[in-house]
Structures are given as C-alpha cells and as structure tokens.
C-alpha cells in the first residue's frame, strides 16, 4: 500500500489553463486556481457544467500536463484511483480481469473476493461488460479504482444516471470502504444533496475563467447528517450562493 502520508497535503495550483482549439479563439478555463487536499478528507467540487471541474480532475490524474502551475507532490502510480464519468471498462475482458488489470503485474493474482463481495459483483465476475447494466458497470469501475487501495480516490460524477435508490446504495457502499481504508476523496458532482451527505469540504466554482467562490467546511459528522439537516443546509447555501446552488438543485429535479 502506498504511503498516504507522502501524498498529503496535496497541493494543486493552476495559474492558467487554456484550451487551444483550431480555428477558434483560445479558451481560458482556469486562472489562479488552488486546491489543497488533506489526508482522509472528502472534498466535493460543485459548479455549473463546463466550469472546469473535469479539467481539474484530469490534471490530478496526470492526464493533462498542458497547464501553467504545479502539482505537489506528483502522485505516483497507485496513489490515485480514478473513476470517470463513464465506466470505461475493457469490453474484451471479464469483470474480474478488468478489476485485476488495475493492479501491478506482480500483485495481479492476489485474492480480491472481499472487494467483489463488498460491491456485490461476485456473481458477475466472469461476465463481460457488454452483459452488465449501467449500474453494474459503474460498480466495476469503482471496484477497479478501489482495488489498488489508493490514497486518493478521484470520482467524476460517479453516481450520475443511476436511479436514486441504486445511487444511494452504491454511495453507502463506497463511502463505507473509503472510511474503512482511510482514503481521501475528491469528487465532482452536480448533486448538492449528495455533496452535503458525504463531503468534509465543499468547493464552489463559478464563472469563466473559473474561480472558487466559496469553500465550506462541514463539521457535522456524517452519521448526524439527517435528511432534515441536509434540506436545511441546502436552503441556507441556496440563499447565500443562489447561482451555483440553484443550478445544482434544478438538476436534481429533472
């Protein structure tokens, strides 16, 4: 298991991130953005579509190096567990193979039965992704990120397009594992209720180039965040940040 202490505090500074597109003016998407992630912390990025949330995650995953700024320390293999908006499974490998392939070659044969059981994938282990429903495919994608036991789990809208019951179920499973294994989580979501239920900190992003309009620390322990508490906090936030939060809420009532 990677030494989590070596990764945190993880500091991401993006002085400037510009998308250069052929035949179009360059698009400056982030300027003077700074994010510090602490050990065993769940941080939720909230903001309207196109504000640059996924760009931030891509930089953290090491997929985008074309930006002005720095990431310190640079995460090494196995310290970041990525979950994309789409499951992105290898359709030509079985569920179990998809999960195992995230591991380094030497560790690929170690038992993963517990993880499969936790994510209710045991009976699906020999199936191909083409046989899975959307919700199951998401479970596999989550298992693939969790199997490397990352210090930081990066989630890009991982519960989107699931029905509320399935999403709630999966959320509980994942966050149970996260707290059991003492992982930090960076999650992008449109769902403010979801963020309020899970996050230790919320970062609200707005406008272009994006800026952080608020950072909200939530000290209420997760098990005391009742539905009533969530609704009250949501109402308060919506009053304080009408643009960001109302767009988030509107999405919820699709």
């Amino acid at each position, binding site marked *: 298991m990677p030494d989590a202490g070596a990764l945190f505090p993880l500091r991401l500074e993006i002085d400037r991130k510009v998308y250069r597109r052929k035949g179009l003016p360059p698009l400056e998407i982030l300027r003077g953005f700074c994010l510090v992630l602490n050990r065993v912390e769940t941080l939720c990025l909230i903001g309207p579509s196109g504000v640059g949330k996924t760009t931030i995650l891509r930089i953290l*995953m090491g*997929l985008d190096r074309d930006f002005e700024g720095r990431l310190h320390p640079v995460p090494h293999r196995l310290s970041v567990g990525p979950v994309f908006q789409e499951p*992105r499974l*290898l359709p030509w490998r079985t569920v179990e193979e998809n999960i195992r392939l995230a591991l380094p070659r030497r560790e690929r044969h170690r038992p993963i039965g517990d993880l499969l059981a936790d994510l209710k994938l045991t009976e699906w282990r020999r199936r191909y992704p*083409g*046989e899975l429903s959307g919700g199951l495919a998401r479970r596999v994608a989550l298992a693939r990120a969790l199997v490397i036991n990352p210090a930081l789990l990066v989630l890009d809208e991982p519960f989107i397009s699931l029905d509320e019951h399935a999403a709630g179920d999966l959320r509980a499973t994942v966050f149970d594992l996260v707290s059991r294994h003492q992982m930090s989580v960076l999650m992008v979501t449109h769902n403010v209720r979801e963020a309020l239920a899970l996050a230790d900190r919320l970062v609200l992003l707005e406008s272009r180039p994006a800026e952080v309009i608020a950072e909200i620390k939530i000290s209420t322990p997760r098990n005391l965040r009742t539905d009533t508490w969530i609704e009250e906090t949501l109402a308060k936030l919506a009053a304080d940040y009408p643009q960001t939060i109302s767009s988030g809420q509107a999405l919820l009532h699709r």
Partner: protein
Amino acid sequence: MHSGLLPRLLSILLLLLLWQLVTTFLSSGALPPPASVFAFVVTEAQSGDLVHHLTATLRRVFASFSLAMIIGGAIGVALGRSRVSDRILDSWLMILLNTPALVIIILCYVWLGLSETAAIAAVTLNKIPNVAVIMREGARSLDPQIEEMRQAFRFDRRTWIRHVLFPQVEPYAVAAARSGLALVWKVVLVVELLGRPDGVGYALSYYFQLFNVAALLGYSLVFTTVVLFIDTVVLQPLESYARRWRLVPSAA
C-alpha cells in the same frame, strides 16, 4: 460444425459435375477430365514428390507470412499512432504497395542471389505494406476514452499491449492474416517458379514445359485445398475467438 458446410460441398460437387460434362463433350487435351487429374494426384503422392513440393512451399509461406505479420504489424501500429512517422512513411508504403510483385521478386534475386533468403525476403516485402495499411487502420481506431483510462491507471507497456492494444487491433490482424495468406501463397508460387529448385511453383513450371495440364490442375487443386483448409481450420476459428466478447448478449 459449420452450418454452411453442406451447401458448400454441394456447390463443389456441382462444379465437378460441370467439369466432367464439359470434358465429355469437348474431349480436348487442353482440359483433362477430373478422373485423370485425380489419378495424377494419386501417383504424384505415392512417389513422394507431391509432399516434397508441398512442404517446401508451405514452409516458405509460413516463414514469410509470419515475418510479414510481425514487421508489417509493428510498422502499421507505429504509423497509426504517430502522425510524424505516418507523414514520412506513408508515401514509401504507397510506392511499395503499388510496385508489382514481380519487380520485388526479381530485385531480391538480383541483390541477394538465388537463395532461400531472397525468396522469403521477396514474399515478405510484398506482403508487408498490405499488413501495415490494415494495421494502421486498427491503430487509428483505438478508443480514446480507454486510452485515457489506461494512462490514468498507468498500465505498464506489456499490460497495455496485451490487454488494451492487441484486443482492439485483433480483428484487423485477423483480416490482414486472411487477406494476406491469399496474397502470400500466390507470390510464393511465382518466387518458386523464378528461382527455386522445389516447391509447388517449381513443379508447375516443370509441368508447364511438358504441357501436362492434368499435372498443373492437380497441383493447383491440392494447393487450393490446403489453403482453404488452413483458412477454415485455423484462421476462421481465430476470428471467432477474437470476437468472442462481442457475441455476448447485450445488457438488459
């Protein structure tokens, strides 16, 4: 068993029947009846010549086919993934692709002498551009989302090639193999005809000088049968295997 096997057998039987009918009515030396062709095949097989020439040819087919698949595959994947190398090498590939097989064969014999090396090099060179072009298409069609995923997980090179790259180019590789086998064995015969002392191509040139049409048809028949057999027994099952994950019932 293949479901299309029975109609295929019937169609071949029909062809043989037609052949027999034509020879019955024409009775010309230019087209011997099936029976005399089969009789030739049997005597040639008993003398051992048939097996001797057939194995010589198959050995060359196998060597040059494998070399061309490996070299052409590597070139194709490199071209499909790097725009710079594609710009530089694309015209070379086009030139090689459109150079007559005969020119390449003659040049190989001139440069390398009338040797086994020259023969295999000539066939390989003929086949490489064909493989490279197909494999380049395969490498261009890699799923960008999956490429990002394997970068995010930092798959090592071997894992990437085996579990990400190869499954995606596999259908292209099988297509290249099937179209390539058809090309390779035709070129091998020409190579043998021009500069080898054995092989089916040599046998054909020998019987051509004797105007023995039964022998020509006999060799061609046996060889076609062997190639079709390889295609059906090796390449087609390989293709189904490569596509096995596509055949799963879709999600509910």
